[in-house]
């Protein structure tokens, strides 16, 4: 292999170091150390109650770790203001929880919190990117489940995050909508080199979407590797 073809080392965007969370007597996340590189789509897979979502909530500090920490672009996230951290590490949850009003209001929500007004052109560009051209003035109550989840994705992207956390984003959708949202997430990740962490209980989904997979059991990280390596069974 010539020097020209040696791939450049990818930047580590998110790194957890001995990350853990204890709730009373129960340790729901135990000593997890892993890293996610730029443009990577890391799947976090495990049975129900394995601590996947709890782990994800520690990454944008919606919950406080009781041990260890997370580094964002090499900086300990406890040194960042929580709002700044959450702007840089976006999140899409299983249920979209859209705010009452139209689609544009939802897409503008994040920038509005910082006193910025997202121009119409940018709103339309984001909506086009998630396959919802012309939806800006639609009331959110008139959207299907798949459309709502697409708005939720556009709303998270409007903050210009460096990393995106996806917590079972398709588990409440029917098969057709699920396929569409899966394709959309993969396109967004490929098109923008966005760093993603996807929590899913669906091993097939992880196989289809992820570049690397981490397996969690009882709050502990038991294996990481490519989907072919860890999801072969």
């Amino acid at each position, binding site marked *: 292999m010539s020097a020209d073809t040696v791939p450049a080392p990818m930047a580590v965007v998110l790194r957890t170091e001995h990350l853990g969370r204890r*709730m009373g007597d129960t340790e*729901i996340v135990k000593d997890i150390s892993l890293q996610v590189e730029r443009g990577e789509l890391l799947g976090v897979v495990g049975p129900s109650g394995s601590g996947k979502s*709890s782990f994800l909530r520690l990454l*944008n*500090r*919606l*919950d*406080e770790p009781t041990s260890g920490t997370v580094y964002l672009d090499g900086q300990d996230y406890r040194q960042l203001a*929580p*709002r*700044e951290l*959450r*702007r840089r590490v*976006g*999140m899409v*949850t299983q*249920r*979209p*929880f859209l*705010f009452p009003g139209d689609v544009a209001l939802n897409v503008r*929500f*994040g920038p509005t*919190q*910082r006193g910025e007004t997202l121009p119409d052109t940018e709103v339309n560009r984001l909506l086009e990117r998630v396959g919802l051209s012309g939806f800006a003035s639609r009331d959110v109550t008139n959207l299907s489940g798949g459309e709502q989840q697409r708005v939720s994705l556009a*709303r*998270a992207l409007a*903050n210009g995050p460096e990393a995106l956390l996806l917590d079972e984003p398709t588990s409440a959708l029917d098969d057709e909508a699920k396929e569409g949202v899966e394709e959309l997430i993969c396109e967004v990740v490929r098109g923008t080199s966005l760093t993603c962490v996807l929590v899913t209980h669906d091993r097939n989904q992880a196989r289809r979407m992820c570049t690397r997979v981490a397996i969690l059991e009882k709050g502990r990280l038991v294996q990481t590797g490519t989907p072919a390596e860890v999801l072969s069974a």
Partner: protein
Amino acid sequence: MLKSLFHSQVSLGFAQAAIASVLALLVVLLARRRSIHLESDAAIALLRGIVQIVAVGSILMLLLKGPRWTSVLLLTGMILAAGSISAKRAKNIPGALKVSTYSIAAGAGVVTAIMTWAGVIDTAITSLIPVGSMIIANAMNTNGLALNRFRSEVLSHVGEVETALALGAAPEETVARYAESSIHSSLIPAIDNLRSLGIVWIPGLMTGMLLSGSSPLYAAIYQFVVIAMILASSGLTSLLSTMMIRSHVFSPAEQLLLRGAE
């Protein structure tokens, strides 16, 4: 009938209290037949109520002979007790006792002070204590209703609140909507009292004034004054408590603390 059996006012009062309690307990037993169990709560509340009110009556008997400033001490004690009672409506919210006490003290205190300064409430203990206690008690109820409603609203909108936090919203902004609806619903009883005054009910204070020989018209107007004061103090208490409690449901790292079981 009772009056012919009991010749002293105190023994007559206890007999009347016993009949009222028996009636209340009969209703509790009726509820029990429909599997609604209020027995222990109602019995404890009745016992506690009579002990407390008799104690206050005894203290008032002594205070009436004392200097006027003692009423300030008694009202302060009432505010502290009211803060403690209504804070229980905000279960699992850290700092609820402090928020409740400050809000009731400010809401009831400001209104009572202004009205006393303006001469609407007489500084005599016999006037200041009953009117002040009515204002404090209503501020307590409003505060309890506001905090209880706020707590339920936040608990039933955890997803919305955390979604907004995850998008970089300021914590207090994420619950502002629920604080507003809590203020509104907590003031419904005070507003309804004012609307129904004289039509649905003739409050105790007016009845007392009539019995003590005041002009019916003045008694009626003064009753309106008291109910309007109650609305003012309740409104101020509710505004303050919901404004202060908003920051108490979040950690310093802007995480929602008030959540259902994880």
